[in-house]
């Protein structure tokens, strides 16, 4: 019978696997369910854990359509390292670069309880390791490097594997433009305060200076608005929040400028 595969964000219905002790009809039926589920979902393998069973069983689909039944598998020895892009049914449509052992030797039991050993390398080795992880309550998330884990958590947040290849930075070059705009605005504001206590002649000079500076702020904000979007294209993982951020920053800056210039027009401008 085809069983439902537990997928993220639903937590596994069992937290760990336990060894098969009694090899009976219940176990054979579970193995049949795993086969049906693998075929129905076009998968290359499945751990019983992934369909909510706590038995330590892994099924691998061979290229000829037959199945390798691994009951109570144990990873005994390893050799070499290999990094591949892995996918798993628990995280549908997502992938991550995972480092694993290139060659492995495992021991396992068949459905009659007889013990066997198996040597595997490359893709089969990676697949078996991934499935054995499940039998101990783990997933490839726990095998990722710190950096790769950050990226993968972003992928989980967006639910997409597409174009999420880096982490959104917290500082940009465009921040220099924002800083320049803020400095110019502060100078205009200071001129406004000083102008309140000056003679008409000096206030006229200050008003002219404020006007020129306000053009500078305006130009800086226009440059910022377009450059920021150009710079943002390089960080596709945070596009949505960038657009809002750029718009907000520009509007705030221009609002501040407008307010200061209106006040200056009436209180500093002598005409």
């Amino acid at each position, binding site marked *: 019978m085809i069983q439902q595969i537990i997928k993220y964000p639903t937590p596994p219905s069992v*937290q*760990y696997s336990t*060894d098969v002790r*009694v090899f009976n009809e219940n176990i054979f039926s579970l193995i049949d369910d795993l086969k049906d589920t693998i075929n129905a979902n076009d998968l290359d393998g499945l751990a019983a854990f992934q369909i909510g069973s706590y038995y330590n069983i892994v099924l691998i689909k061979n290229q000829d359509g037959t199945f390798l039944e691994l009951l109570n598998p*144990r990873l*005994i*020895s390893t050799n070499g390292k290999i990094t591949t892009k892995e996918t798993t049914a628990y995280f549908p449509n997502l992938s991550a670069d995972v480092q694993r052992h290139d060659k492995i030797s495992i021991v396992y039991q068949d459905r009659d309880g007889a013990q066997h*050993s198996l040597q595997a390398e490359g893709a089969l080795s990676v697949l078996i390791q991934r499935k054995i992880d499940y039998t101990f309550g*783990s997933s490839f998330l726990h095998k990722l490097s710190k950096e790769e884990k950050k990226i993968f958590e972003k992928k989980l947040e967006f639910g997409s594997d597409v174009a999420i290849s880096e982490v959104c930075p917290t500082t940009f070059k465009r921040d220099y433009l924002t800083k320049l705009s803020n400095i110019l605005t502060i100078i205009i504001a200071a001129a406004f305060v000083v102008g309140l206590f000056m003679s008409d002649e000096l206030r006229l000079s200050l008003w002219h200076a404020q006007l020129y500076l306000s053009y500078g702020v305006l130009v800086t904000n226009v440059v910022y608005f377009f450059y920021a979007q150009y710079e943002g294209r390089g960080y596709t993982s945070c596009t949505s929040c960038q657009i809002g951020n750029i718009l907000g920053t520009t509007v705030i800056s221009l609002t501040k400028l407008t307010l200061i210039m209106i006040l200056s027009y009436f209180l500093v401008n002598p005409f």
Partner: protein
Amino acid sequence: MLVSGHTAATFAAKWLGSAHEVVVVTPNAKWNWIPSNIWVGVGQMKKEEVTFDLAPVYAKAGITYKQAKAVSLNPEGSASSNKPFVTVEFTEAGKAGTTENIEYDYIINATGPKLNFGATPGLGVGSELGEHTVSVCTADHAVHASHELEKCIEKMKKGERQKFLIGTGHGMCTCQGAAFEYIFNIEHELNRAGVRDMADIKWISNESFLGDFGVGGLHMKTMGYSVSSKIFAESLFTERGVDWIIGAHVNKVESGKAHYELLDGSMGEEEFNFSMLIPPFAGVGLKAFDKAGEDITATVFAPNGFMKVDANYAAGAYENWKASDWPSTYQNPTYSNMFACGIAFAPPHPISKPMSSPNGTPINPTPPRTGMPSGIIGKAVAHSICDRILKGENAPLHEASMANMGAACVASAGKGLFNGTAAAMTIYPVIPDFEKYPGTGRDTDYTFGEIGLAGHWIKHILHHLFIWKAKLKAGWTLIPE
């Protein structure tokens, strides 16, 4: 009444008072707090800090102390007397080699194990440690280990790279925990000495997965999650840069090299400059004779030399194992006045899944029976005997089955007031009960673990607490096992 076993003897003496005699037979002049041997083995404690003289303590408790080793049991007495007796051979200076027959009403066999170094060629001869490896099983072994470690550190300081191989020296070992503690204490000490970058450290054990610990692994609650001991152990080993070989039966040790067979049948060898390999345990080789002098050792003891108790020794295959197979009263089924506790009782079967290589070599941990469970068992057995003496022959026996018992374990991973670490774990029950707790056989609500500095402080406090208790100082009965 004659007993062995410090916990059982001291409680029996307290409960029975001076109206009855409690005799302790032990070949050792000193008592050893074995868990702290790890710290002796890395030079962080002196032998004197983990041992003390038994004679004054037993004198204070009113216990008759004989520094001797038991050689044989005559549970039916002899042709001339119906009184059961034990034959002991003295080890104390001046009387060494002389023997004595000591009569008893009740006897507790708590001899601990024979360190069976001789089971692995090159690891040692009989119970004597060989020249190629070190051990932390006794305080003297640990002192020797610390000296060897110091030599390696000196070599590393001179630029000579060293390889450390720590683990189990046979496919049927127990006590993975001691080796686990030692490997991480070594790693910690090498860091402290500033030579960690000059060391390759490798773990070798008979576990079929890292984190089996001889109890079939465990799933512990930590920070709200259920984490497999495999993930826990692999994380720790990876974090501390320690490589591992598992499913290994070390079948030969040479100078600087260990040969092993893996569960998949393959053979391998590992070179080392320093190696601590735990030996397998066996019974101490006590013989038993009936009234006519016929050898009844096979009736009283299991083939591995441990004493038979009220366990189900006919449980058969792994799938038939039940929690109820494990003993609860530790009474010998043939002679009701004989009990065994701690390592000395014969377990019905392992706890970990039994496995063997395609060549037929059994490779799986044997069940641990040390630490907290052995203390609880010793106290329960002492209680049973005291009740039978004070309340009558039909007094019910006290029960302390490991299948109904939780245990706490604090495994040191480095000693230091501010940078020490230890893994603190609890497990309930020790023996999985698959009927009561389908799945892992354990209650994950009571099986949890954490690792950190607080664990180290607990470990260090326990060191002082248990030595205080063992010395029978004020309030010793209030300190739990």
